[in-house]
């Protein structure tokens, strides 16, 4: 697949929402270890707002911008801040109704850049950045013109990144107060973002 159309992108979003819903409880249970146990609900609510907004989208830039606005205006909390920032950033790096491989790479890189403006968390801090950063970096490094292969590289890196959080000690936000107790469980945010990237690749 060398071009990603708006229709393809909507399919990918729908599939990601389906997969996130399937694992909603798992994300909340992981969050309960070192947080308030609502991450599953939070990501489903935020992603649902984005998918609903995307239904009427006809062009990448406006559609992604509206998705970001929908998340931030209809939901609240850190999950929404970061997911909303991701789509707003993607909007900055995308335009038109079809993207080739370099267009997809640029869109995801721009999404990551905007998330990095919102959080100081870095890979290794046991947050969603442990999935997002390697995923986007792997996509940038991939030379394939095939968008499915590109997304698969991102999904593989996100999965590896999320799995690596099991051994990590939380180093960011309120979770940091749990110190050693946070070791042994994957981070809920890294796990849900990895699930999202896996679904993006599967849907194509």
């Amino acid at each position: 697949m060398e071009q990603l159309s708006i229709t393809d992108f909507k399919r990918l979003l729908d599939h990601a929402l389906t997969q996130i819903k399937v694992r909603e409880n798992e994300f909340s249970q992981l969050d309960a270890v070192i947080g308030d146990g609502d991450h599953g609900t939070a990501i489903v609510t935020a992603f649902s707002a984005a998918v609903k907004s995307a239904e009427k989208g006809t062009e990448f830039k406006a559609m992604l911008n509206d998705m970001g606005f929908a998340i931030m205006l209809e939901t609240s909390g850190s999950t929404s801040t970061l997911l909303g920032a991701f789509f707003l950033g993607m909007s900055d790096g995308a335009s038109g109704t079809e993207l080739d491989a370099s267009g997809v790479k640029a869109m995801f890189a721009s999404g990551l850049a905007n998330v990095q403006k919102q959080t100081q968390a870095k890979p290794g801090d046991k947050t969603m950045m442990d999935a997002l950063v390697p995923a986007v970096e792997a996509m940038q490094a991939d030379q394939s013109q095939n968008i499915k292969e590109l997304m698969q590289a991102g999904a593989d890196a996100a999965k590896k990144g999320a799995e690596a959080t099991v051994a990590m000690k939380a180093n960011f936000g309120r979770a940091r107060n749990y110190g050693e107790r946070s070791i042994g469980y994957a981070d809920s945010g890294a796990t849900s973002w990895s699930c999202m990237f896996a679904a993006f690749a599967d849907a194509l």
Partner: protein
Amino acid sequence: MKTKFINSPENLTAELLEGYTLAYKDQVALGGENIVVRANPKSEDKVAIVTLGGSGHEPALSGFVGDGMLDCSVVGDVFAAPGAQRLFQALQLMKREAGILLVVLNHSGDVMSANMACQLAERAGIKVKQLLTHDDISAGIDAPINDRRGLAGCVPLYKILGAAADEGKSLDELLEIGQRYTANVATLAVAMRSCTHPQNNAIISDLPDGIMEIGMGQHGEGGGGRKALVSADETAAEMVDLLCQQLKPKAGQKAMLVINGVGATTQMELNIVFRKAYKELESRGLQVVSSRIAEILTVQEQAGFQMIIALLDDDHIDYLNNKAANAPYWTTIGK
């Protein structure tokens, strides 16, 4: 058991804001649901000063909307952030060429609401910059800024910024004036009796009789040091000492001292505490040039107070003491 004169808990915030704006209708008005604005907006060529925070802390924060202080406060439910949607609505209302300075108290919900609303505002062509307050020192001396909550030290800042904005300072100049203040203000809270949440009657961080807790948060949450209750002088001396460890003042510097009652401590006690704190500062060679004893930010019926000390520059002193302000809960005649 009912302990408060309220009606339906879910209408509490709307009702208290309605009562407040009816009482002071020459000064404040509702600009939308949970948005308090000045009754007589200032000229749009001046930067707007906006803040946000949960209700339950009356008169804060909306008590300081008025001439010479805030242009707008955006109110959340009891002890809760207002959310990005309402804040974005307020930013749209305050939109102007000169820009908006958004004062954010460091509490995670408020910070998130502000970050989201500012991202949206930027995309909607609204010029807005954030100024974070983090005056609490209960996380430890020289603790990272992210770990320090915003307490009542924001209130004198509203006065400083409001006066500077009236003078025609630009958004960047206001940010600089505000950052110099936030870098040199420190607040410490002490509680001796906790409070109940007005919506569910839950007792927040119950304190046994005869015990006080230094470092108590603005929502009654515990902060650390519980110990046997001591005299006003001993309490004040210990708090001044901790605040000065953070501020590291030099003899000859000019200081602001504010004692903020948080709800159930009498004005009598606050005066007695102020007396000792003032003398402690004087004994360190500091000159107290601006002061106040009042309930500016409360925590329901919690007994206790917040002690706020700031080291001020000359422009801060001028804005605080010499420029007029006329908000329902802060009046300065000016010179």
